[in-house]
């Protein structure tokens, strides 16, 4: 082949490639571009005269919906929305959105695709959501476990420590070695609250218990969680608790003949013999309330707009308690649940010492939300020091 022929061939090939690309592109011109300039995309189809457009709701998940834990619980909340509102809403979700610069693109795309209510289900979406919220003033943003709000963005969280306390009550009654083990994720206040509440609950059943904590420095890492759980069991713990999002800890307990709890969702199926109870989060009630507010126009955000729901509001529960838990323990758990629901029972009531012996709550003082948000200590009975603390 001569040079001229070769060049002609190359040009033809290039042209064909471009033509093919154009053809593919021409196929669906009406597909809206990924998140256009600040003004939100117009609604695609003409609205029917009598029925209003269904409200489009988008969910951004940090993990896979099949994780059996955190994201699974959020997705159950989304399904509850669909069951409640039927064809008044249309929901969609994107899973495995990392807590990074990519989140901004995904959330912006959601807003640009016509979603008027966007839920971001992990702390790491805070900054991206704030940025996108500023660009889409008529889209409403709900950020889970965060602490920054805006005119069209508010935050929500669940009192997971209430579930942890109730689990602790059972753990204290069931442990024979008086050593409890906790597989911790990241040493943030939320997790420290849970460890402390778990220990306090256990101490209410059995003042002799002590808690060991091992950190995996992540939210979802089954192999590491397995190793951490093994290490705790090797260290003498016979009841395990976790703040990580996979069933690995429960499975390890099952394999080694110890007991453990499910976390975020009902994990009974992952370890039928080991499972004592599951501290679940029920996002349904909050999602339903929020959607109602958006539909009837009463949704308000702004500085300080933060909802922190627990047993009282139906967001937290301890379910699937094992058969072999003694009746009196089960009764105590019910008592605590009722007390939390009607406000008569306070978990964080003084006198409370941290595990260095210092008083953190005076006698009869009840901790307020501010105290709880900034917890940076272990209560007496938890071994070791909080990582990263002075």
């Amino acid at each position: 082949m001569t040079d001229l022929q070769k060049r002609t061939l190359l040009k033809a090939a290039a042209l064909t490639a471009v033509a093919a690309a154009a053809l593919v592109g021409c196929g669906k011109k009406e597909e809206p571009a990924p998140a256009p300039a600040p003004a939100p995309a117009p609604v695609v189809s003409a609205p029917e005269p009598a029925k209003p457009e269904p409200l489009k709701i988008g969910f951004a998940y940090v993990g896979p919906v099949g994780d059996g834990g955190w994201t699974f619980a959020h997705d159950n909340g989304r399904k509850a929305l669909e069951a409640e509102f039927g064809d008044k809403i249309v929901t969609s979700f994107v899973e495995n959105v990392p807590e990074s610069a990519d989140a901004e693109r995904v959330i912006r795309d959601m807003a640009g695709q016509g979603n008027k209510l966007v839920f971001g289900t992990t702390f790491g979406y805070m900054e991206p959501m704030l940025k996108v919220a500023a660009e889409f003033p008529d889209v409403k943003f709900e950020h889970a476990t965060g602490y920054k709000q805006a005119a069209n963005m508010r935050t929500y969280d669940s009192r997971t420590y209430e579930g942890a306390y109730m689990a602790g009550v059972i753990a204290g009654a069931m442990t024979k070695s008086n050593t409890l083990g906790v597989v911790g994720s990241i040493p943030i206040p939320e997790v420290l609250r849970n460890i402390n509440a778990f220990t306090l609950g256990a101490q209410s059943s059995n003042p002799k218990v002590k808690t060991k904590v091992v950190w995996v420095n992540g939210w979802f890492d089954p192999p590491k969680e397995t190793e951490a759980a093994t290490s705790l069991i090797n260290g003498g713990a016979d009841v395990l608790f976790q703040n990580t999002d996979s069933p690995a800890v429960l499975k390890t307990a099952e394999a080694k003949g110890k007991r453990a709890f499910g976390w975020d969702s009902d994990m009974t199926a992952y370890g039928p013999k080991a499972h004592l109870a599951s501290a679940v989060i029920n996002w349904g009630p909050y999602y339903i309330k929020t959607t109602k507010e958006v539909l009837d126009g009463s949704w308000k955000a702004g500085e300080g707009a933060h909802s922190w729901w627990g047993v009282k509001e139906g967001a937290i529960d301890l379910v699937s308690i094992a058969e072999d838990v003694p009746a009196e323990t089960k009764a105590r758990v019910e008592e605590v649940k009722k007390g939390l629901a009607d406000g008569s029972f306070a978990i964080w009531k003084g006198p409370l010492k941290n595990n260095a012996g210092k008083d953190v709550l005076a006698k009869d003082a009840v901790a307020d939300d501010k105290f709880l948000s900034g917890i940076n200590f272990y209560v007496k009975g938890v071994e070791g020091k909080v990582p990263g603390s002075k």
Partner: protein
Amino acid sequence: MESYALLLAATLNAGTVLALASLGLLINEKVGIVNLGAEGMMLCAAIAGFATVVTTGSDTLGFMAGMAAGAGLAAIFGVLVIWLNTNQYATGLALTLFGTGFSAFVGTSFVQARIPERASFAIPGLADIPLVGPALFRHHPLVYVTVLLALALVWFMYRTRSGLIMRSVGESPESAHALGYPVRRIRLAAVVAGGALCGLAGAYISIIYTPLWVEGMVAGKGWIALALTTFATWRPARVLLGAYLFGGVTMLQFHLQGIGVDVPSQFLSMLPYLATILVLAIISRNPQWIRINMPASIGKPFYPGG
């Protein structure tokens, strides 16, 4: 004391994965091929094994599926590298990337799946010896198979004619070719066998070690296995010891946390990698020594036409 026995047990368990993968890579490298795709092969094998156990309930089939997945991917790698003489490092990396994505892709429908409870294993009699029993004799059969495998490899490579041929291919493929040996087929056989072992390691992770499926659950063990092969100067028995050492470091980090040692956990997590670097530096220091131990044709393409 008891906790140390248990720590040893956990170490053996963790080390088995590394040992299997590393032995597989050793077979590759002994014929001169470096397969950087270990991580990808292990992940695909993990999902293949897990999915098989979920659908059939049989562990054995699961392990076989894992080995098949590893061998299959290795075969693709082998054909590219041996017959088309593509760059070994780049091809291996492509395999890792592809394997990581493909396993996640196939695995999306298995993320919530559960497999039936693992039987507990114990060698009767021996398992009841205090301390030593729980440490050494209560493991899954594969742990013991791995030890036997390492010994078998030593015997094969250093005491049989086939092993000698294999090693000579690794040292000088040109000479072996001149002597009339089917160099490329021998290399492919080694690559596929190595892939099968990596696959077995991957299946072990998802069926026994952490009986779940999660994207990326191999979490870098493939890369550590690669380092381990060099660390052990390409000798199977040393691979085994090194694997347990590395497995131990991982478990040690949690053990130290549990007994309240106040070192930031991240520094403990760094240990296996720092240990690898340290050992690499130490053993590579003497270029003569490395040349004696390292198969001379590693990474170099072979052209039978000369």
